[in-house]
């Protein structure tokens, strides 16, 4: 009845649910009655594995797959970290986003060494840097197998471009902006012609993309150097990405929306912006948010500033799994060349395997929703040129502080100089 009692009651309920959940997870090994083994797979966002799971179950009669998906990465990460730390609760195969992989690489013993399960022979199936990201420096312990990478492109709305008198053909659009300065110039033209929408969605998505691109083209790391030291203030890539974003903001081109917020979603629906930097995994996100009404209105062109990769994941088998051997087999299957092609067709998650990137099925793949854009060709072209990017263990919280500062700037609450200082000070706090 009291508020505090209600809190207590809900606490009890959630504790009970948690206990049930834990016992359910613990019970997945309880398959002693028959020989069926249930493997739990934890993923976030969309991996495009639904078909593959069915196929695997059909090929392996003794295996059942339970898929647990959490849509938001921000929600998934803490859960995964807790499971791994607690030593129970995690699935038999878990997806690890590259941003958190560094943290887990400091504790490889929490996961099985996939080299012990014959993964060593698969090295040729992965881009070299992708393979090395999940390998300990001594090369003896492989924590995860690569799933996808986040090749970069720029998505744009053809209807809005037409309205602004800009070309709509994807090749011509790509030629409009070899550099980010050209992108800004195009944006100014757009802003001169169209008043009821902005050129780009917002600073947050833009900054993250430009940062990944600038960093991988130069020093190869972002806020932390490979020794784990915070270098946000001295890394030229961090500053140049900031400056570019600021220039776009100050030219009045940004709709000021923060990625993955509801208002960002309605921005898609209401056609409030004409372009958005889109790593390959973003295509599915755009389709989901913009909905059927915008089918055929979006298209994909080259990104200003050249190739880069933002995001991408791995599959790993936690040590706590009771079926490590079967789980490792499943992880190997899901990251195989063929599976990566299937996942690409399902969700446009760009393969991390050079063979898959070269596969005609990927290269010739056209995305109907995006005006039949040859997304396979667009993304695969830059993918093999991508250089690895090192992300520190506290990359996520530090990145969020930079996003916050950019937002405060966009809201007119901070001056540029103060925002930069604040971002750096807050980054220090996060890295403490």
């Amino acid at each position, binding site marked *: 009845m009291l508020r*505090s009692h209600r809190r207590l009651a809900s606490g009890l309920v959630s504790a009970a649910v948690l206990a049930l959940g834990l016992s359910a997870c613990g019970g997945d090994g309880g398959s002693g009655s028959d020989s069926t083994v249930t493997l739990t797979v934890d993923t976030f966002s969309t991996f495009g594995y639904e078909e593959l799971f069915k196929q695997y179950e059909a090929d392996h009669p003794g295996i059942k797959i339970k898929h647990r998906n959490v849509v938001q990465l921000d929600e998934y990460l803490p859960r995964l970290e807790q499971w791994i730390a607690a030593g129970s609760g995690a699935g038999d195969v878990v997806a690890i986003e590259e941003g958190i992989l560094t943290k887990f690489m400091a504790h490889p013993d929490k996961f099985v060494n996939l080299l012990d399960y014959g993964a060593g022979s698969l090295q040729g199936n992965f881009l070299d840097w992708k393979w090395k990201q999940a390998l300990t420096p001594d090369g003896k312990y492989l924590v995860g197998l690569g799933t996808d990478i986040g090749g970069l492109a720029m998505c744009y709305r053809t209807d809005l471009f037409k309205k602004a008198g800009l070309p709509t053909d994807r090749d011509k659009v790509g030629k409009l902006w070899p550099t980010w300065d050209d992108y800004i110039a195009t944006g100014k033209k757009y802003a001169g012609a169209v008043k009821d929408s902005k050129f780009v969605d917002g600073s947050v998505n833009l900054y993250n993309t430009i940062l990944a691109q600038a960093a991988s083209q130069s020093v190869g790391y972002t806020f932390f150097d490979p020794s784990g030291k915070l270098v946000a203030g001295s890394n030229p890539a961090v500053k140049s990405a900031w400056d570019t974003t600021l220039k776009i903001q100050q030219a009045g081109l940004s709709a000021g929306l923060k990625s993955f917020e509801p208002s960002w979603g309605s921005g898609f629906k209401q056609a409030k912006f004409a372009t958005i930097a889109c790593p390959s995994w973003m295509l599915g996100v755009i389709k989901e948010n913009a909905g059927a009404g915008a089918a055929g209105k979006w298209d994909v062109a080259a990104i200003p500033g050249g190739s880069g990769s933002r995001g991408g994941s791995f599959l790993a088998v936690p040590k706590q799994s009771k079926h490590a051997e079967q789980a490792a087999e499943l992880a190997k299957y899901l990251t195989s060349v063929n599976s990566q092609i299937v996942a690409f067709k399902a969700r446009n998650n760009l393969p991390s395997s050079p063979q898959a990137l070269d596969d005609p099925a990927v290269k010739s793949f056209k995305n109907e929703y995006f005006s039949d854009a040859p997304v396979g060709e667009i993304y695969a072209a830059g993918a093999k040129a991508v250089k690895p990017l090192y992300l520190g263990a506290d990359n996520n919280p530090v990145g969020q502080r930079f996003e916050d500062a950019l937002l405060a700037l966009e809201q007119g609450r901070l001056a540029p100089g103060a925002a930069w200082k604040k971002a750096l000070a807050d980054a220090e706090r996060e890295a403490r």
Partner: protein
Amino acid sequence: MTISIGSRTGPRAAGPPGPPAPRRRARTVLARWDVKFSPYLFVSPYYLLFFLFGLFPMGYTVWVAMHDWELLGAHEFIGFENFRLVLADPQFWNSVRNTLAMFVIATVPQLLLALVLANALNQRMRARTLVRMGVLVPMITSIAAVAIVFSQLFSRDFGLVNWVLGWFGPEHLDWAARRWTSWLAISVMVDWRWTGYNALIYLAAMQSIPRDLYEAAAIDGASRARQFWTITLPMLRPTIIFTAIVSTIGGFQLFTEPLLFGNGDMAGGSLRQFQTVTMYMFENAFRRFDYGYASAVSWMLFMLILAGSLLNFAWLRRVGGGAK
């Protein structure tokens, strides 16, 4: 719960395997024990659960707070270092400031409004039960639903509130961007949810005030307003203290509304303009995975609530003290 009663009273039913001769004495002893201890056994399930899920975590939190306790990695004992850091942490004091401000902005109008509402509901009217139950509707609405609806109402580009405001002047007001606007929006959310609940408590208390007091006052020529101020309000004093303390506890633990107002942003806005203490605690525990620090923050919150409730209590006692 029933299981634990059963198992605890089990030995009594079975009886200790004493010698058969003094059976009657054993029985009287048992009967005495029954009278003495059974009441404790009957209330024990609550206390067992409270110990398990309330007291033990509280004590354990102290232990955790004295460590550099990262989720993955070592747990190093550092004494009161975390508390020292919290006290010197501007982000912590920022969250305290936000929490206190939203507590005042939300609670004062809420309790006043609840009082007025209760007084109105106490009058004779048609469909009285329906109206009285009606004020509880916001209470039974899922808090997440409330927060989602309100954050859409207050959204910058497509919000209803901005649409209405747009007729008078300011356009596209970004409610989340500024301290005051975000506090206001969140307080409206809180009040929407809790005013009816408090009104109902006041109403129940009002109905327990003897009718003859009012009749006597009416005969003496006291107006309705006068009756309210000199009879209703003083008689409600214990209830008001109760609601004030419960609101203090709830207000200091404000979490869901600001969290959902910021669309799940644990930092509470770009400049932490609406991050509450609980959000800050949560951020340290589940974003920074610094459990030791988060535990220290939670203990500071506990102290704050304690101090707030005591202050409230003392103040309301004094204010209402001379009335009777």
